[in-house]
């Protein structure tokens, strides 16, 4: 009775390898399944374009887009645009997401700050980005600060609202435990609320990250001379459709990659969960 593990552990190692193999196989399967639709779409697109069934002017075929991508990468410009955009999006995300997290914590924790702050925050949430861009420029100029701030404004809300409601979803029973054990306020946050709200906070991170990334389109409309959002609007202004598509695809792929990164983090952080995983 006192020796639960050691005796059992050795006996079981034999079973580990096939299990891991099966796991890897399952992973590959799911990856292939996930690639199915995008690949199919690209193929159909290419075929339709080759057959002249869709306007190649409006929908350059994947191959044309790829050529255009290669051309853009050759002189290294594209990487510079990407680098600049990634930095902007990251700064905006850190600023806006960070503030969202902080406000979400504050409002989630205290009824009184909720009553004072939340109605205003919800109203600001409903202010359209595009309509107030001139004000951003008036106040912050069109340099990096206003771009980053505009991105931050977008990134703020998903994290704010998910943190706030994640906290409000914390099981009261566990709160009682924390109080009985005399947790200090910071300990309550770190040991109870954050882990319990973690699933929602991470979802907020994903949504905020997405908005930061997409926010580049509007932000880089404001007096930018670099960045992928700028590249896209400029290509639109000059009717360079293949470049527009290169940008759209870059937005999608890089955005998805960042999203997957957070998902990976989520998987690691939420190992303790005992929840439904679908059939």
């Amino acid at each position, binding site marked *: 009775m006192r020796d639960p593990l050691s005796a059992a552990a050795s006996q079981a190692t034999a079973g580990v390898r096939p299990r891991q193999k099966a796991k890897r196989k399952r992973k590959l399967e799911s990856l292939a399944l996930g690639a199915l639709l995008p690949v199919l779409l690209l193929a159909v697109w290419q075929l339709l374009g080759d057959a002249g069934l869709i306007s190649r002017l409006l929908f350059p075929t994947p191959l044309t887009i790829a050529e255009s991508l290669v051309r853009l990468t050759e002189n290294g410009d594209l990487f510079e645009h990407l680098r600049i955009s990634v930095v902007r999006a990251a700064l905006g995300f850190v600023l806006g997401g960070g503030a969202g997290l902080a406000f979400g914590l504050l409002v989630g924790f205290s009824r009184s700050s909720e009553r004072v702050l939340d109605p205003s925050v919800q109203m600001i949430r409903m202010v359209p980005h595009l309509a107030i*861009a001139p004000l951003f420029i*008036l106040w912050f100029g069109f340099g990096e600060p206003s771009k980053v701030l505009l991105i931050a404004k977008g990134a703020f809300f998903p994290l704010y609202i998910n943190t706030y409601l994640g906290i409000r979803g914390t099981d009261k029973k566990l709160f009682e435990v924390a109080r009985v054990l005399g947790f200090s306020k910071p300990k309550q946050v770190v040991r109870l609320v954050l882990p319990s709200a973690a699933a929602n906070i991470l979802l907020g991170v994903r949504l905020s990250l997405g908005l930061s990334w997409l926010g580049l389109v509007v932000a880089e*409309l404001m007096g930018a*001379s670099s960045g992928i959002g700028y590249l896209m609007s*400029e290509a639109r*202004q*000059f*009717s*360079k459709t293949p470049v527009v598509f290169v940008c759209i695809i870059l937005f999608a792929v890089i955005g998805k990659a960042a999203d997957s990164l957070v998902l990976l983090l989520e998987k690691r952080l939420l190992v303790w969960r005992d929840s439904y995983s679908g059939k």
Partner: protein
Amino acid sequence: GKADATKASAGGGGQAKPPSTLRIGYIGANKLNVPGGSEGWGFYKGLSQDELKKYGITDIQFIGFPNGPDLSEAIIGGRLDIGSLGDTPAILAKSTGAPTKVIHQNASGSNALILAKKGGPTTLADLKGKKVSVKKGSYMHRYLAGLLKKNNIKDVQLIHLLDDDADAALVRGEVDAIATTEIRALKMIPQGFPVLDEAAKNNPDLVGTGVTVVSESYLRKFPDIAKVWNELRVKALDDLKKQEEAYYAFLAENTGNPLDLVKKTSPVSQLPRETFTDAGIQMLEGTKSFLLEEKLADKNFSVSDWLIKP
């Protein structure tokens, strides 16, 4: 193109019947949902509708676009039959292969100005090494770049900003100057922003012109459209000349701009009667070569082939 069109009409055996629906695009978010100018007036008064009915065109749809490239895209995609837009975006689209023909050019259409920030540059030469904002790909862009080239002013940093963003940047002093439309300039000037240049006054070769284009597919269905269109336009022009005040009131309501500014920026006297003028075609050529030189446009094309001359 033109040969195609005639062939189509010949093949049809006499008068080909155009579709009953005509879709017209313009730039702007206009309250009355018609463009400005004589073309807009004709539709506003219902004159043009009556004429078009004769050809079996009973359903006329108007679509406002925020800018030229969007409109061009809609024409390429077959969503539009006719569109009025600035020459610069129209040329840019054509150079990528857009299947369009020009049926009319409004050569004296669009004036533009360079405004400087308060306490900033006082002459064009002062712009050297400075930041100037402009909506890239628009006729203001062409004007500004042409102006700088003409005056041999180097090292100017062009910043792409939408119109109201540009105003804000100027107020803040973040840009040293802006290239903007006349009507927007007239709102800024009273606030004390000095004028460095005005296209219509000092560089008439650099003003923006407006073109009305038709899609080649529509042209095949209605080969006479260019002729019909210009007839309508002239008729409307004659009508509006009889009631200029009413025309200005219409423009003011349609765009939301104050009446006095409308009168100043869109005088009836500038509305052309001719379908094309040599000076106008000259300006199109100039703009095209400029865009090619600057590598803003990819492929060359023949302007004269592009126009459907009467």
